[in-house]
């Protein structure tokens, strides 16, 4: 007979097997293949060390860390109040606002870059700030894209936080600030750290926005890997930088894991309450954030409605065509269908695997080894966010060419790549909530005779439902907007929206430009609509409302 601890480890292994296999096949093998291609190119490890010793490399790494840290900090500072207002108070229109704030997440960086620059450049409406082409502009761009992550991850944790502890503290005479500092924040910390980790990884691997807003004067690790791989053919240098990227991300994830370890807190769904005077500052911040997101989007919408200097819906009518002189192989409308289909596949893959991962890493460990294994797994599934899309994209082409993984030409390759990016979002949305469920609740259920599945259904699922929806919506949006890996893998006969928009923007002709803007607006509107629908979904029998 198995000893109980061995049995638990086997159970852990069984649950973890599928996610680990998937990540090994679609992440570890491709990245390893591309890295070994680079390291075999030169004289091996010595040459790679030489690359890491260059002054330029140090500058690039420093710049990446500083901008990513600034972007993360600002996203958290702006996102926290908004998460509170949009998930805990009954502010009018909060659902549409929540959906709207997720829109930047899917907008093509080139389009946003052009919109930002038209605002920031000399003579533009915000030209007096003198930000055009500065690192500050890059940070603002990063926040624009990522603040939604903080709102979603923290908001869904906040929603299921039992408000009674805070109410008790307030009754005992604590000021709202004290309540937030001593009661609410500690309970939210795991979610905040979770969100901050994801945002940091997104910022640190941002590509288009750094190039567009920095006027290509600044380089990050990600842009440098692209340059070394595609323009300079220095695969060795690129491999060295990718390895460095992996190590830094690994260290960060370990640190984040320590910061997230917090005692469980009570979970119950709280009814949103009426905003009070104490909410003035958060509400003001939310409005500011909305304005911040709305201005570039408004510029985009305005541009999409202009044809030959006049107002017109012509750009939208043209979406059913293949563009000026047949720039496209398929009409934009068909690309939209492709995008939606791809996103559905990416979403079920990310949610299915993400749920398994979240369950595996949050179960209470009985031994130090078990805890370490769970911790390592947790970090392992975050890695895809921290690795260059260029390295992964080329790695796919090298590694996935043999049966049983002869997938280079498969239609499923694009959703698989997108699911890799979406997976950490799902995991990070689920884990803070799952981890905070008091294990004694499960033990109580078990002692009352519930089997493992019934325990899961009665204890975990009721609180998990919301974050699961949030995570699924998130994965869907991430897939709709993904461009980096997709551009390597998408097939011509089935391009996605971002690929089509990029193609339109790459050719001269007013109509192509107008169509690209209109297509971006349609992509944004579709995302917002899907988010609204997802938010309306509830499981009635579980009594979450």
């Amino acid at each position, binding site marked *: 007979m198995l000893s109980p601890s061995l049995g638990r480890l086997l159970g852990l292994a069984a649950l973890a097997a599928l996610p680990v296999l998937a990540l090994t096949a679609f992440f570890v093998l491709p990245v390893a293949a591309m890295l070994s291609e680079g390291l075999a190119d030169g004289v091996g490890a010595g040459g790679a060390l030489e690359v890491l010793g260059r002054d330029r490399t140090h500058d690039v790494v420093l710049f990446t860390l500083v901008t990513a840290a600034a972007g993360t900090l600002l996203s958290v500072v702006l996102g926290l109040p908004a998460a509170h207002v949009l998930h805990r108070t009954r502010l009018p229109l909060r659902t549409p606002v929540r959906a709207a704030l997720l829109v930047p997440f899917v907008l093509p960086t*080139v389009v946003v*870059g*052009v919109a930002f*620059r*038209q605002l920031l450049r000399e*003579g533009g409406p915000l030209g007096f700030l003198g930000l055009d082409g500065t690192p500050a502009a890059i940070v603002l761009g990063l926040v624009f894209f990522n603040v939604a992550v903080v709102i979603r991850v923290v908001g869904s944790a906040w929603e299921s936080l039992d408000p009674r502890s805070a109410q008790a503290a307030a009754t005992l005479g604590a000021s709202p600030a004290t309540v937030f500092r001593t009661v609410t924040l500690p309970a939210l910390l795991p979610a905040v750290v979770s969100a901050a980790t994801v945002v940091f990884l997104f910022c640190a691997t941002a590509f*288009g926005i750094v*190039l*567009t807003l920095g*006027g*290509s*004067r*600044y380089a990050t690790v990600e*842009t440098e890997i692209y*340059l070394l*791989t*595609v*323009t*300079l*053919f220095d*695969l060795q240098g690129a491999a060295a930088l990718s390895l460095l990227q992996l190590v830094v991300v690994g260290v960060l994830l370990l640190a984040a894991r320590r910061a997230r370890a917090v005692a469980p807190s009570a979970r119950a769904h709280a009814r949103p309450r009426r905003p009070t005077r104490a909410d003035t500052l958060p509400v003001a911040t939310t409005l500011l954030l909305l304005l911040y997101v709305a201005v570039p989007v408004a510029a985009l919408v305005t*541009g999409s409605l*202009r044809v*030959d*200097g006049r107002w017109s819906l012509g750009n939208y009518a043209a979406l059913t065509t293949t563009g000026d*002189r*047949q720039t496209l*192989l398929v009409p934009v409308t068909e690309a939209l269908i492709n995008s*939606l*289909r791809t996103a*559905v*596949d990416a979403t*079920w893959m990310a949610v299915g695997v993400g749920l398994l991962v979240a369950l595996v890493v949050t179960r209470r460990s009985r031994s130090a080894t078990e805890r370490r294994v769970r911790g390592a797994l947790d970090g392992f599934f975050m890695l895809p966010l921290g690795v260059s899309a260029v390295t992964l994209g*080329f790695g796919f*082409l*090298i590694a996935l*060419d043999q049966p049983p993984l002869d997938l280079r*030409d498969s*239609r*499923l390759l694009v959703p698989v790549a997108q699911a890799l990016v979406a997976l950490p979002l799902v995991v990070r949305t689920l884990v803070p909530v799952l981890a905070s469920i008091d294990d004694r609740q499960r033990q109580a259920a078990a002692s009352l005779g519930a089997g493992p599945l019934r325990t899961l259904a009665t204890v975990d699922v009721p609180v998990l439902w919301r974050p699961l929806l949030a995570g699924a919506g998130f994965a869907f949006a991430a897939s709709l907007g993904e461009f980096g890996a997709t*551009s*390597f893998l*998408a*097939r*011509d006969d*089935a391009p996605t929206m971002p690929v089509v928009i*990029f*193609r339109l*923007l*790459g*050719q*001269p002709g007013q109509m192509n*430009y107008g169509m690209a803007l209109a297509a971006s607006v349609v992509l944004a509107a579709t995302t917002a609509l899907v988010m609204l*629908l*997802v938010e*309306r*979904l509830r499981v*009635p029998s579980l*009594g979450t*409302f």
Partner: protein
Amino acid sequence: MKSIPSSRGAAFLLIAALFSGCSLIGTSEEQSASDGGSTPEQVVLVTHESFSLPKPLVRQFETESGLDLEIRSSGDAGALTTKLAVTRDDPTGDLAFGVDNTFASRALEEGVFDTLDVDLPAGSGDYLLPGDDGERLAPVDNAHVCVNVDTTWFEERDLAPPESLDDLTDPAYEGLFVTPSALSSSPGLAFLLSTVAAYGEDWPSYWEDLLANDALVVDGWTDAYYGDFTQGGEGGDRPIVLSYDSSPAFTVAKGSQESATQALLDTCYRQVEYAGVLEGAANPEGAREVVEFLLSEDVQAELPDSMYVFPVRDGVALPDDWARYAEQPEDPYALDPAQVAAERDGWLAEWRDLVTG
């Protein structure tokens, strides 16, 4: 327990419908596989994202040759070259199109291409890659990267537009020029090469003057043309931009007889795109047929409209707009590909230092 409000029920149904009917699974990988029992032999063309040919033309080729032509396009010319290099042991297709004269030597060094064995059409002799001379690479199209000016803008201000690279450093044109970065954009790189071809070892001092004259370097062609150029999108404020010799054909307003822009023919750098059969191709014979197809009169005549480039074949008529508004330079700048291959990295590093200052 509450009942589901009807709007939520509707939303649920909508989502369910979306999720059940909307997946890539179940869509067939091959649509043309089962007509009449005999499957046509497949040939795979690997190319960059700008590749495009009208569907009827491709279908006609398939009918005549009995081949099933599959086109896989992604990334730019640089990404394509890297892709060919890293998959050289197990190529992702039978032939490649789109490696240009900036990147070709790298592909040849890596042994990506097999010998060609295709008769090249009259006219393509001018575009052969020096050093290869048609042994492995067939020139298919050409275009020039040229400085473009907004002629309307200059007319309105009664200012003569610049004509040469030298003029761009003239204080009269201070703050008017925008170019994509040589690091992240292929026309940007071509412009750097044209300054190297024009000024030889002194090119860095030319760039110092250019930057001192407040030339703006942006990320890519799209940013420069649609973001900053006065004839691109709305709101651009620079009337001189780096683009192509064909660009003026796209700035003719409806009902107008004149293009609003003009390419400066003394500032151009030639780009030639090549096709070749891949070493280790599964279907080398089919690949050769596709190369011949790309050089055929039908495809060559279609190149301007489909890919914004000029044909290499003699005697191919250009579309009206092109014949009228897209003038090609007589004597563009050019560099030896071997020199580009050897020195490109050094030039780019030096250029980067100049621009980041």
